[in-house]
């Protein structure tokens, strides 16, 4: 295999990320630029940026691999990833923008006026962010090893360094440009090889994929003890609700100019994601044509990268592989920088800034602390990615969604729509949802998948953990009416009143 083309392509993507990030550096001056790009990002740019950030290793490589493995049922994953934005749109998009908060912990504190809830939210942001970063590093290592023959530690390391530099250099403003560019890199890099491979397939007489019938039928059980309907429904619920609770997703909403902009951005995001998710099934189906079964030792996460050189030996195949490798790196870099940005923000605000400002006020030391936080944010998940065995890219990402669905989703839904939410209720909901979902998932990771109802319930906790968290929050809130934050009405006025209505006291100035 000739590695040169792929090395050039990956290097180009990394360089673009750094150069475009550097442009942002010149524009970022105030601290608020670092967090929310000064709130002047247009819906179209923001939509590209959100989609660019969202489409991760799981979408670029993992979805095609899972569809290859398990067939049509895995199409529910991209459907859930996309519908997550529909749910986010109708539940939180505009109110979240109007809340005037920078991050999820900011929102939690503004809505409930509790430092303790802020702290728990911050821990969750870091936990979910790190869990989501691990498969990005694993995907990068796997890709670089496959397309360049580099040792396994290199790919993740490259992504870690580029992300730390880009985030530390320009913060959110640079990341917004970087992310927007990366959406288009990713779509092109996945679409062009897909069309070329499809054309080749037509020319060779369109042979049918070699599969057994269950590959084409949704909700077919994997084994005698499987519960496909529950498994699928719980997964889709986790993805639909988890999206709004992902720390790197909601941060982008603070960069919209107003609530209307936040909604319009989301509609465009749904269109951009829909276009992208038409592509992975093509790779899965062509994969079944090219390899009826995978050679031993080959993970299904790599079939996207393997297909071109199998179907098109020679320079053409190498070019397509290089293109896919570049696109895959765009996916790792964009998601990892978005996540790193959120985790950095939390570490900076919760851990470093309180200490730095004790010694010296002002903006400059603040930004230095931000850079230290950026390094901390990526180095720990990189270490975890090296120390643990990969569960499969899309599977690990699914776990992060499930935890977000059981914790932040109830907090946001009740926080935005229910006036009687009390501080204790919100805290109880976060703790119950967070503990049960984390334990269920931890158990599944530690003991491996089990059969029967126990296994199904533990591996897919969203369907019971999320309602449990909501019910806990509501019951505890109703039992502790004296703990309803005093400013609740003011917050609700701010969240729901359109910007064109002038409110002298209730608005927060940006």
């Amino acid at each position, binding site marked *: 295999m000739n590695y040169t083309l792929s090395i050039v392509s990956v290097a180009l993507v990394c360089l673009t990320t750094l150069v475009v990030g550097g442009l942002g550096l010149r524009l970022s001056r105030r601290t608020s630029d670092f967090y929310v790009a000064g709130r002047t990002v247009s819906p179209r740019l923001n939509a590209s940026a959100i989609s660019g950030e969202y489409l991760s290793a799981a979408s670029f490589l993992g979805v095609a691999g899972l569809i290859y493995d398990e067939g049509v049922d895995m*199409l529910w994953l991209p459907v859930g990833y*996309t519908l997550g934005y529909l749910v986010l*749109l109708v539940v939180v998009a505009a109110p979240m923008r109007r809340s005037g908060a920078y991050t999820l912990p900011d929102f939690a504190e503004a809505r409930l006026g509790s430092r303790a809830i802020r702290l728990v939210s911050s821990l969750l942001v870091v936990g979910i962010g790190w869990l989501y970063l691990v498969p990005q590093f694993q995907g990068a290592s796997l890709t670089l090893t496959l397309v360049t023959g580099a040792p396994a530690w290199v790919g993740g390391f490259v992504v870690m360094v580029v992300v730390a530099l880009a985030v530390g250099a320009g913060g959110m403003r640079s990341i917004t440009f970087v992310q927007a560019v990366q959406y288009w890199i990713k779509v092109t890099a996945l679409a062009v090889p897909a069309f070329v491979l499809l054309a080749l397939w037509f020319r060779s007489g369109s042979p049918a994929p070699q599969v057994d019938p269950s590959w084409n*039928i949704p*909700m077919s059980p994997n084994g005698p003890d499987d519960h496909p309907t529950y498994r699928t429904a719980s997964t889709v619920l986790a993805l639909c609700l988890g999206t709004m609770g992902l720390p790197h997703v909601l941060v982008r909403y603070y960069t919209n100019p107003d609530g209307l902009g936040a909604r*319009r951005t*989301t509609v465009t995001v749904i269109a951009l994601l829909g276009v992208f998710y038409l592509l992975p099934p093509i790779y899965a189906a062509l994969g079944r044509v090219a390899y009826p079964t995978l050679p031993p030792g080959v993970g299904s996460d790599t079939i996207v990268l393997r297909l071109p050189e199998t179907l098109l030996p020679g320079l053409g195949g190498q070019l397509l592989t290089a293109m896919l490798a570049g696109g895959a790196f765009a996916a790792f870099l964009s998601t990892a920088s978005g996540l790193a940005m959120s985790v950095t923000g939390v570490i900076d605000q919760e851990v470093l800034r309180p200490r730095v400002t004790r010694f010296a006020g002002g903006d400059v030391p603040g930004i230095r602390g931000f850079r230290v936080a950026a390094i901390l944010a990526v180095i720990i998940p990189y270490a975890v990615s090296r120390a643990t065995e990969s569960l499969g890219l899309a599977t690990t990402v699914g776990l992060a969604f499930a935890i977000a669905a059981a914790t932040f989703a109830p907090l946001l839904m009740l926080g935005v729509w229910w006036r009687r939410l009390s501080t204790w209720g919100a805290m109880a909901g976060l703790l119950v949802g967070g503990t049960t979902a984390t334990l269920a998932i931890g158990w599944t990771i530690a003991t491996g998948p089990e059969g029967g109802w126990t296994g199904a319930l533990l591996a897919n906790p969203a369907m019971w953990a999320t309602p449990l968290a909501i019910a806990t929050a509501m019951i505890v809130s109703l039992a502790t009416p004296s703990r309803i934050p005093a400013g609740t009405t003011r917050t609700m*006025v701010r969240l729901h009143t359109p910007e064109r*209505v002038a409110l002298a*006291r209730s608005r927060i100035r940006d």
Partner: protein
Amino acid sequence: MHARPVSRDLDEQTELGDVYLDGLMRAQLRLSVAVIALTVVGLAALPVTLALVPATRTMTVVGLPFPWVVLGIAVYPAAWFLARWYTRQAERIEQDFAEVVDAP
């Protein structure tokens, strides 16, 4: 007769302002619940159809198996149309609200 715009009541959290806020939230929430209900029904329709009409399990549409066409292609434009419809309705609710509360 009320001589000043209701937006002042909203801002100052009077009982009247509260009534208007409740009305706005209820209208928006009703719209959101409608969209979510439509989504759930739309998603559940596929497995229900496949179970009730077994022929759809092996049926092909323009050469592709029916379940692939629904889950791989058709859901995305449907989600987009639903999102656009929601956004327009939500903007209309806000427009009406703004006109009422800003009227002197």
